[in-house]
């Protein structure tokens, strides 16, 4: 098992209810899992906890058997540099860098930069003609493809995506999802995807639903 999430509880300061209340689930290598839920149900919180960007109040997050729920900033950073990658709805590209530099940045930070693999990603994602452009010079769909290329260039064990198609139109959305699933299966990574869309969730191997702070398998 790549990741085992056990009994996670999280309450934010100033709030009088737990966002997560004993959420538990597993994630296997090569698997794609979608998490759906209402607005404010805590989907992004789960994703942030899996990425060690946040810490739970209680519970465990076992990554290859090691608990990463309470890592120091340095240790969590090291984990994200090489093994876990994120794709955000807002793309969050670095505006100072051009497309080529954005794509290679994460892999180079984690010392996992492979020019041949990056070239493959660039070709598959149709970014070859955009490499010298800056984020503000390309469209939203193109920016999201750059963000995906950036995360996959690391060859992460786990790819986390938070509403990766939320800002895209239907066609672009379908294309981005197809590419993500395709490239995840090629690289052998696991994909954990947060989405509002049942259609997108349906295309993943498993569909989880978050409600009342707990994660359950969604009805087929």
């Amino acid at each position: 098992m790549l990741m085992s999430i056990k009994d996670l509880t999280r309450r934010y300061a100033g709030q009088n209810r737990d966002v997560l209340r004993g959420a538990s689930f597993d994630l296997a290598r090569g698997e794609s899992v979608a998490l759906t839920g209402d607005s404010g149900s805590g989907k992004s919180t789960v994703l942030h906890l899996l990425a060690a960007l946040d810490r739970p109040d209680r519970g465990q997050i076992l990554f290859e058997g090691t608990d990463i729920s309470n890592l120091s900033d340095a240790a969590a950073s090291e984990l994200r540099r090489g093994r876990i990658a994120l794709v955000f709805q807002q793309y969050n590209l670095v505006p100072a860098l051009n497309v080529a530099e954005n794509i290679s940045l994460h892999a180079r930070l984690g010392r996992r930069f492979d020019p041949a693999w990056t070239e493959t990603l660039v070709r598959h994602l149709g970014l070859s003609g955009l490499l010298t452009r800056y984020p503000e010079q390309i469209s939203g769909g193109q920016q999201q493809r750059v963000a995906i290329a950036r995360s996959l260039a690391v060859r992460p064990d786990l790819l986390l995506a938070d509403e990766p198609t939320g800002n895209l139109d239907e066609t672009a959305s379908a294309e981005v999802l197809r590419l993500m699933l395709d490239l995840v299966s090629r690289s052998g990574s696991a994909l954990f995807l947060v989405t509002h869309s049942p259609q997108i969730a349906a295309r993943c191997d498993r569909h989880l639903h978050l409600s009342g702070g707990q994660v359950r398998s969604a009805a087929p």
Partner: protein
Amino acid sequence: MIHVLGTMFRHWRRAPLQLVLLIAGLALATALWSAVQAINAEARASYGRAVERLGTGGMAALTSPEGAIALQTYVRLRRVGWQLSPVLEGTWAQGGRSVTLLGVDVLSYPGAPAMVTAAEADGSLGPLGVLTTPGVMFAHPETQAALAGLDQEAFRILPLPDLPPNLVLSDISVVEGLLNRPGQLSRILILPDQPEGLPALSVLAPRLQRSSTDDGPLGDPGRLTRSFHLNLTAFGFLSFGVGLFIVQGSITLGIEQRRGTIRTLRCLGVAMSGLMAALLLELIVLALVAGGLGLVVGYSLAGLLLPDVSATLRGLYGAPVDGTLSLRLSWVVSGLGMALAGTLLAGLQALLSLRRMGRHLSQASYATARLNRTHIWIWCLSGAGLISLGAVVLQVGSGLLAGFVFLGGLMLGSAVLLLPVLTLLLQGMRRMARSPAFQWLTADSQLQLPGLSLSLMALLLAVATNVGVGTMVSSFRMTFVDWIDQRLVADVFVEVETDAQAQAVMRWAKANDARSLPQSYSDTRLNSAPLRIYGVVDDPLSRRDWPLVRGAPDAWDQLHSAGAVFVNEQLAHRDGLQPGDRMTLGPDWSAPIAAVYSDYGNPDGQIIMSLPALRAHVPAPIVRRIGLVPTEATHPGDLGQGLARDLGISATAIRDKDMIKSLSIAVFDRTFVVTGALNILTLAVAGFAMLTSFLSQWSRRLPQLAPVWAMGVSRARLAGLELLRSLGFAVLTFACALPLGLGLAWALLNVINLEAFGWRLPMYLFPAEWVRLFLLTCLAAGLAAVVPVLRLLRLSPARLLEVFSNDRL
């Protein structure tokens, strides 16, 4: 409108630190400017008081090319009906101290009422005491104290604070006796009101020269000190400009952060003109509050600096300036006016950009702030254009103003060039970067550059000014110390009170195997300006040491054998004289110029010639100081003791070379105390400007830092990179400021000094000073980055996660 204004003002309740920075920046800028203006206003008021009460600067004067005017000439002109006032001036050595003795005719002298008032204030003399009491004299209290050892029976010195130091004023009958110049006048003042129909003075006294102003010691000190005040004003203006960078950053941020509010108000039907008016009103209120605060700080600062400034002005120019400050309405109004104008100027760009954006307020301007090639070219051309403009003005124009325009063009143009230069440097570093973190850092810094550019320009100007002024002062000091060594040819100097005493000292020196170098001189006028002519004896030490700037190799032979003269640098510059030229000193008196020599600290023209040549035209030149050179076997101290023992000369009248040198250097150092203080203040303001910029950028930094953090760069590392970025900018700016500072130093030494004082100075380099300044710059940049870095270190992951929140837009 009141609701709009209220809504806009509420922003500051949520951003108190930003408000404090805005007000502090503006107050600091106003304070430095106001302090300089307060000092200038106080000095001008002091000059005005002195001129009004005692001054003769506004009057025309008659002088003689021969030096002295016969008393009969004055009497003859008076009998014709001309309203005149005679003046006799000379050097009087007393108690080891030389003072200028000024004799006036109390009945006709325009400043006589001040003398009468001072006499009355003393209590022991009645209104006529000035006339009827023998030996009554007036002097500045400092001079009065220094002459306390005088024979109290023969002389009675009363305090008159409006007089410049080192000057003693008395009735002409007293002075002619003390100077042993009976029946002689130095000049004749032409009083303002004259009867009509008088024959012209040029007909009545054709050999006398008429000047439009009196350049004597009671002339207008404002003219002499103009360059000093201009320098001070330029410094104040620079500090003000640097301070405005802080204000600009804060105002821009204040408007940027209220985009949402502005957009909402627009949606609620508030016209753009109404919003602009509200923002304008807000700026005016802030300017008046900060300006008022700046005036209070400036007043205190001026109070602290004024004693040093007045000491400098008294020491350098003999200009009387009180050491105390008074509050003047004109100063308050001008300070508030500058604060208001500065704020509006600083806010103009933000207001215009707001107006340009109109309805598209939601557009993110920051991401598109990257400089493209066209921008870089525009900045390059603008900077080069400003520098060229200054250079053209310097070539075409002349005088101090042209010099300052050149400096202004150089500084401003270089500041404009900073942005493209840093962009190109960062581009180069980015290309060479191997580590991804460093590549991100350089690329990110490039993106931050437009937002930081104003504070970096402020830092550039502050560092360049420090390098330039520091190099100028240190070069001047080094030159001055060498020059003092060269000018003080003898080992011991004796002040003598009479010609007889001078002869006695020279006879004693001969009997004791010491060489005498009497400083014989005669005062005259050349082209209506004062000129002192020294007659020198031929001595190998003078030939070896005298500080010649340029001249023929056999200049000394020409001086002693061919009747040539050496002119001081300021006279050569003023009258365009060169070695090889011939100068006319009187109707039957001209001489070739063999060399030009440096003569720092002297505002007047001076020439030296051989003593026999001087005596040929001035039979009895004045000797009030004699230099003595002992044999190698004799210690200079023994000479002094021998003189005191054998001739009864007071110990205070005998000074050795080292004593004079250390005193002169102390005066020099004090002169630049104010410059040093303003230098440090300007650097502090620039550091503050950087802090403001970093804090201003903080709110925009999170969306840029959060993704990098999410990619595995820890907050501690990000904080380290932020510090590195700040230091990197400081280092790059310093690298640009150093050559600019050296250019500034060159301009100060070769253009400003030349135009202001008439002398050029050699430029020396002081790498140790650069290292000190470099460390100070890094310290300022480091301190400016401390707050953002600490914020970053303490930043909770939750704040960073907000960046990724899907609901944030």
